[in-house]
């Protein structure tokens, strides 16, 4: 017994001693890795041990113990006991230390998520996971494995704003493609919930065009939502996927998303009556995909798109005529739609209630104000920054030994002749 306790004691002492500097930490890390299995086998290791450690100073050691203590099947009692402990740890731990054992940290946080879902109280997990993500991230440009879990909890808790705060980071680097798919898919759904359709479109676009060899279920669902959101936001449907989508996607997506493509084509024709009939006919399938709400939003957006088209052709139009042309019930409904669009800023118009006439105006933006100049300036700066990034990436890729090796191997295919050797000889095999 004492011997066993001693080994645990020994570990604790080492943790307390070696948590100060980075060389000590790496030694400690090796030690902990070695002791991991024996700790797991210990039946006596329990939560009281954690009282001897300080979460913020001894984060690495605390993490190892905590992980050992919380593994095992999930149950309601365990959940309600462990959640506050884990949350407190996440809030107070030291980011530098936990990054050394990031996979353990990730599995710990996933545990938290499981517990929270088990108790059906996702909101409890949102705060801690948000902190966890911020601590785990090496840079805001890098996606972690926790991002999708956080977004999933936000979706279930309907706390869209916290989810959105994470989404405003530009993700460029990714460790695991699967994380990216889930991140973009959940992110898209959060943006849809917040009615920020432009950002949703961007995120879903990233999933749809991501490189993949076989059709990915997440990407397929994302494609269905992508079609619907592009109908709502852009008012049109393009039958073909963007050229940069993978060949697997281009070949297979269409076969699995039949009703959505029909919906898109029907939308392009612009007739409300037919669209509604189609929706009713296929409502079962839409319901199965849980997209029925989105589909209904798409249908109501058709009215908007038709009214928008009218502004191109007419200077003034009576409300009754608008109702007739867009196939609304009566002038009152037309007035409501037009009013809504004016408030949303989609059109510029004046409604004259006495005559029942709407007068469409030109966009009053003259692009002469200082705010507009600032906007333009920031867009220009951003563009310059991005171009620099792109060039840097291109350069680094051309120096990458793997890339050079591949080109060297396939030199025969790209036979440029002796005077145009782009790759040094040493890379050919």
């Amino acid at each position, binding site marked *: 017994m004492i011997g066993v306790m001693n080994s645990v004691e020994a570990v604790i002492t080492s943790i307390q001693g070696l948590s100060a500097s980075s060389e000590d930490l790496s030694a400690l890390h090796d030690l902990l890795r070695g002791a991991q299995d024996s700790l797991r086998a210990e039946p006596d290791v329990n939560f009281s041990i954690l009282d001897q450690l300080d979460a913020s100073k001894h984060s690495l050691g605390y993490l190892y113990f905590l992980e050992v203590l919380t593994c095992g099947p999930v149950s309601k009692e365990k959940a309600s006991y462990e959640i506050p402990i884990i949350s407190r740890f996440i809030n107070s731990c030291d980011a530098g230390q936990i990054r050394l054992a990031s996979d353990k940290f990730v599995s710990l946080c996933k545990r938290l998520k499981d517990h929270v879902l088990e108790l059906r109280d996702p909101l409890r997990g949102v705060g801690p996971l948000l902190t966890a993500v911020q601590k785990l991230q090496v840079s805001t440009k890098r996606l972690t494995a926790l991002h999708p879990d956080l977004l999933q909890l936000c979706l279930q808790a309907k706390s869209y704003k916290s989810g959105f705060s994470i989404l405003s980071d530009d993700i460029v680097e990714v460790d695991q493609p699967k994380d990216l798919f889930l991140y973009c898919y959940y992110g898209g759904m959060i943006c849809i919930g917040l009615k920020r359709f432009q950002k949703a479109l961007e995120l879903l676009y*990233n999933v749809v065009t991501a490189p993949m060899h076989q059709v990915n279920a997440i990407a397929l669902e994302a494609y269905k939502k992508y079609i619907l959101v592009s109908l709502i936001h852009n008012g049109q449907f393009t039958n073909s996927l963007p050229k940069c989508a993978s060949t697997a996607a281009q070949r297979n997506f269409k076969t699995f998303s039949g009703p959505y493509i029909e919906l898109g084509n029907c939308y392009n024709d612009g007739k409300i009556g037919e669209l509604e009939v189609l929706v009713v006919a296929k409502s079962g399938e839409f319901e199965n995909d849980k997209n029925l709400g989105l589909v209904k939003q798409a249908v109501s957006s058709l009215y908007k798109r038709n009214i928008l088209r009218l502004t191109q052709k007419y200077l003034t139009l009576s409300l009754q005529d608008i109702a007739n042309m867009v196939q609304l019930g009566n002038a009152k409904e037309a007035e409501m739609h037009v009013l809504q669009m004016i408030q949303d800023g989609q059109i510029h118009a004046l409604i004259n209630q006495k005559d029942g006439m709407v007068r469409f105006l030109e966009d009053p933006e003259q692009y002469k104000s200082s705010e507009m100049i600032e906007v333009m300036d920031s867009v220009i700066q951003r563009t310059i920054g991005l171009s620099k990034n792109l060039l840097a990436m291109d350069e680094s890729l051309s120096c990458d030994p793997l890339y050079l090796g591949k080109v060297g191997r396939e030199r025969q295919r790209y036979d440029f002749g002796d005077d145009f050797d782009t790759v040094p000889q040493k890379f050919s095999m």
Partner: protein
Amino acid sequence: MERDDEASGPMMEMCTNGGEETSNRRPIISGEPLDIEAYAALYKGRTKIMRLLFIANHCGGNHAIQLEALRMAYDEIKKGENTQLFRDVVNKIGGRLGDKYGMDSAWCEAVDRRAEQKKGKLENELSSYRTNLIKESIRMGYNDFGDFYYACGMLGDAFKNYIRTRDYCTTTKHIIHMCMNAILVSIEMGQFTHVTSYVNKAEQNPDPLDPIVIAKLRCASGLAHLELKKYKLAARKFLDVNPELGNSYNEVIAPQDIATYGGLCALASFDRSELKQKVIDNINFRNFLELVPEVRELINDFYSSRYASCLDYLASLKANLLLDIHLHDHVDTLYDQIRKKALIQYTLPFVSVDLSRMADAFKTSVSGLEKELEALITDNQIQARIDSHNKILYARHADQRNATFQKVLQMGNEFDRDVRAMLLRANLLKHEYHARSSRKL
């Protein structure tokens, strides 16, 4: 007028009908119901029969015209050797014209027997020429075969035989002869791609061609372009036809047709300056337009913006144009294009246009006009907007400066999105590639 030179037979009939000299100056393609005899008199050969049959098929319920056309077709077919057409015509007549126009089996058998004999004779001659290897005779032999098949109505064989003479042609004249025959058969068969290729072949000849031949080739290629719906090219070809052509190509086309086709296609597809230069100021084409004064009037009306009268002429000509074998399929499209051009031209000089006055000018209701204008605005052919409350059309010129700013901002945002997506995808690919190569290693 050239028509006085023509076979005075039918003309005399017309004179007895009308009793006045002015009747032979009466234009044949006009707003009045078509005078079948006069129309048929413009043509000769197989096309006369085909045109009469076409009229009989497409004249709607007008039995008088139908029977008249069928009667004339019957007479014409009996002068030839095509028994298949004969049988068709007899079926169509169905005994309505009495015994004189019924089935004449004796005639049919006689003609068929003669045809067999002639065929045998031609075959013998041809094989003897072939063994003797006399180029000119072989050429004549194939030519005769082509003529024979053409007369019998077997157009495919006729074409093949005419083409076979190509290897035995020695002079320019032979080649031209072959091309003209091939063109004739192709037009009758309706294969206008062949027409174009043989016209090109004939025109590529290094020796200068007879002006009549050039005019004929231009007519043929104009017809080909018309069938392929290339109205601008068709118009240009027709407008270049030399008036000396007269009636010499009436086994295919009459000068009235050249005027009508050329005029309408030009009106539908030329812009204003081209219309003035190539049609109105074209002295040569004026000779053709004299034959169809209504077309001449309507072109002038269009140019001087008298749209109401222009559209009136068009409406009156429509019924007769629908009976024309080549123009039938294109009448609606051409009319549509002419009307659209008229609408656009009307609105071009004005800042604002009163829709009710415009509707009067175009003989339509204000709401109908609104719909037409809406379609043109959507197609971006008119830059204007409709004030539906006061029924006025206002010209709208896009503000270039604002549009540019808008585009710039939009482009910046798109670039932003696209590059970020691209960096992300590149990262994914790199990751995948690393993963694969680390697995391999």
